[in-house]
Every structure is written in structure tokens, then in C-alpha cells.
């Protein structure tokens, strides 16, 4: 999952180095609009729906990955 996220971040936001604890806003400078775009890309890639009300709890790379993994497990 982290490898795929790395690729998305590199291709779309030019961010080359990704760490678990990185914060999307503080460390990558993602605006709320950028974050929604990232959500759209992830949804397309993984066929997962990320609920709008969950955005606020997804601040770091590890939070997003844990969320996506839980969603995938739910779907299986």
C-alpha cells in the first residue's frame, strides 16, 4: 500500500520522500483541494469509497494507510 501511495504522491504532487509519520498539510503542503484530489485518485485506483466525514481524521500517511487497509479488509 505504501508503495502505491508513494507513486501517487510522486506522480501527482512531485513528492519523492514519504515517511509514515508525515503529515499531508505540514510536511507536503497539501491544500484541502489537493487532499480531495488525492482521495479521488485513491478511490479510482483501489475502488474504495472514502467518506467525506472521515477526511479530518486522515492527517498522516500512516493514518491514511491504516484507514485504507481497514476499508479493504471490510470489503473482502
Amino acid at each position: 500500500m505504501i508503495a502505491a501511495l508513494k507513486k501517487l504522491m510522486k506522480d501527482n504532487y512531485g513528492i519523492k520522500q514519504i515517511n509514515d509519520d508525515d503529515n499531508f498539510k505540514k510536511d507536503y503542503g497539501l491544500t484541502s483541494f489537493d487532499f480531495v484530489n488525492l482521495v479521488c485518485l485513491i478511490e479510482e485506483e483501489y475502488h474504495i469509497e472514502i467518506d467525506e466525514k472521515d477526511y479530518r481524521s486522515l492527517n498522516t500517511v500512516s493514518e491514511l494507510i491504516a484507514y485504507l487497509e481497514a476499508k479493504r479488509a471490510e470489503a473482502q
Partner: protein
Amino acid sequence: MAGYPYLDVVVYNNFYEMLHSVYGKTPEEIAIRYREKEAIRDISYREMLEETTSFYFYLKNKGLENKHIGILSENRYEYLTIYFATVFKNVIAPMDKENVPENLWKQIHDFDISVVFYTDKTAHLVESFQTSEEVEFINIDEVYSDIIEDKHSIDLLWEEIKDTDSDRFCVLGFTSGTTGDVKGAMLTQRNVTACLRGALQNNVLKSPSLAVLPMNHTYGFNPGILCTLYNGGTICLTVNIKHFQRDLKEYNPYFVSMVPMIAEGVYKKILAEAKRQKKDKLLQRMIKVSNFLLKFKIDIRRMLFGNLINKRLKFISCGGAPLNPYYVDRYMELGIYLLNGYGLTECAPLICINREFDMDSESVGTIIKEVDAKIADDGEILIKGPNVMLGYYKNPEATAECMVDGYFKTGDYGYLKERRLYVTGRKKNLIILDNGKNVLPEMIEAKLSNLDWIKECIVTTRRVNDNRILVALIYTEEAPEDIQADIDRINESLPEYMRLADYELMDKEFEKNSTKKILRSKYGE
């Protein structure tokens, strides 16, 4: 300038004149288009006004005339019918769904709001004070379909509102005060319609338009949505920001109102997409060729780049926050006019916007026709005209303070070249984020100062990549072990956009002026 006069636009001084005229001409024209689940739904002017009429009589029969009515809702079609049903006999207060319950309750209380219309999506914001006896909370999702079942003739609405007083206070626009308290700009229908007309006198607006900004945002709602209705056109609504890019393609709008964050985001996405398809170099080559041909007045931009966003998009108005002129030029290369504009809630909000044939990427635009602008001796931009509010609600001191010789003091510094305005800085310490949200550093600093261990602090911004984030600079002699826990607690009491993304500890006290005020300009960006 002299060779490019203002455009002729029919004069409506209130919403009765506007809606009555537009409906009379094109009742079956589509007023609003939006996506309901996956299907596109079209609402004609007739349908919109039928529902407005039902809602108007619902309010009347409940005995709510003259009451202040709050609306706390995500972007949706019903926002418009409720707005029009309310604005004639009540005061409508568009509330920010990104605010925290504590602040919303303060607004309800301070601005005498008796009824709040909320939705399933905003219910969590009001659940803690729903039991209040002074304020009625009504869920739009629960009552709307029943309300519109009770049909009345639109003629009855016309009869009720034909004597509309254009100068009656009818919209409460929330705006930041310098001390941290929210102020309520009292706007009239004359204010709002003057702003709409002003926008249309600067540029030709063709239909349809796309609205993406939050509807409680004065800029997003008035120039962004009502302008199109003033013209009798179709406004497409992006009801979920996730679908914005798709809406841009599928609705194929001629005009979109944005804030810099979105305009920049859309452009970056175009570049990222080109790169992903390994066509970035090709795109740059095509731009070079197109720019070269333009020197010979050969314009093939639409043919070359029409598919990048959509084939029709011509104008993007950009307001709410300072725009980087770089993007004006980049959009222009693609054949899209990114029209930088400027305004304040107190001016309903439009003061000026760039014009198609008179663009200047450094300027915030040409002052709208009926507005008089001048520069004070200290450089502050002063505004007089039909768009200027009546004053601040229940705040005569603030009202007196913001006016000088009949002119409204904007709090911004700038200069004029004929009718073109240039903004050079802010008089107040207000931080304007790229998404158009205003942050008063003093408000967050006051909360930080309540922490015993903080001796001095300021809130400023730091740039990370292209985005600006909020940062607290703190001077302390004795920092606790878990500083972040204190910051988190403060963040929880603040709306999302006001939250501190980071903090920095300073190794010495801040530099101050002779009156012991921190020299803010020395710190942050």
C-alpha cells in the same frame, strides 16, 4: 480603458425585480442543474420559484416574518429556494458548516437568530443545542418535501413581494473583526443586486456557470451563483467537491468562480495528468507554438487545449484571497481568462474584477461601474457605492470606525491607475489563506496565551511547497514535555481551517516596537 466602456446591463434593484423579469421572459429555462446521486437533475425557473413560493408561505404561516433565519448547509439546490423565500420578509444568515458548534452557538445568540435550517450532513454541529427553547432548529431533509407539497401560485408570491424595499436589511454576512469577534455585515437587496450588475457590466457572462465554492461564502454565492440568475442563465452546482473535476468536464461551463487554491490546484492537476500520460513535454511544446502563433493573431488555443478542462470554459473569476499572477498567465496560454477580483463581505462583496479586453495580471481588476474608489492619505483603499452595507449589526462603534466621509474603509492598502485597482498590503493583521478563509492571528494567540508556559507568541504562516500553513511561533522559558497535546487541545476548539499545522519554539523574545508590540513582519513568511 477609455476604448472599452462598461457593458449595458438591465437594472434590477431587488430580487423581486430580478426574479419577476427573468421568470417572465424564460420560465422554462433551466435555472439550476445538479447531480442527485448519479443522475443529472434540471430545475427550471418555474420550478425554482414554485418551491420558493411554497417555502415563503411556510415561513409566513409559521409566523416567522422579520425573524433572523440561519442556514447551515452544504451546497445544495434547496439553499437557493430557502434563500429567496427568506430574503424578502426575513433576514437570512448564511452560516459556515466548517465552524465549530461553540462559535455557531455564539453567532446564533449574538445575531438574534430565531430559526436555524440545517441538514442531515450538518446535524452534528447543532445537536448539542437542539433543546434550546429560544431557537428552533429545523432539518431541511426532514421537512422540505412536505413544504413544497403545499403548492401556491407564483402570482401570490409576486403579490406579496412586489413592494419590496430594496434598502431593507435582509442578509447578514459574517465577517471577521479585528478583535477576534465575528461581525455581521447588514446587506440589502440593493447591495447584492448592485454587486451582480457590476460583475456583469465588466464581462459578458454566457451560460452555463458552475458553482463550487461554499454557498455561505458571499463571494461564492453572489457573483458565483446569483450573477448567472440575474442573467437568466443556468447555474450548475458541484454538490460534492470530489466531483468537481468531473463536473467541469460534464457540465461544460463557460464560467466558474474559484478561490486561488482551486485555480492553482486545477492547473497543477492538468500538468500532473500530462506527466502521467507522458505528454508533459508535448504540452509544453504546444504551448510554445500557440504562444508564437498568438503574436500573429492566430489563436488555436481552444483547438489545442480545449480537452484539458472543457471546450467552453472561458472565464474563471478568482477572489477571496490574493492570486499569484503566474497562474493568470498560465491559464491565458490555455485560452482561459483567470479574472482576478477583489471585494469584501461589507461590499456584497464585489469591488472590482479584471475584464476580458483589459487584463492586468498584477491588478485586482477594474472598479465596477457604480462604485467610487479612492485612496486615503495613508494608502488605504476607500469605497463608496450601492454595494456598501448599511453597517455592522448591533455594533455602532465598529460601523463608525469603518466609515470616513461616507466611504467604507477596506483595511487594505493599494493604489489606483484610472479605474484599475492594485492591492499592496493589509492594514490589519488578518491572514488570508489561499482558500479564501480569513484567519485572525490574534484570536488564536489569545487562546495560546492562556497557557501558563507561553510567554509570548504570534501566529503566522509558513510555505510548504506551494501551500501556506498556519504556524505558532512561541517563546517560553519552561516548555512542558508534551507541547503538542496543548496545541491539539487548542486546535479542537477552532474551525478546521484555523487550526495550527505546526509550532516553533523561539530561542529569544520577539523583537518589539517602541509601544512593545511584536514586530510581526520580522517573523513568518
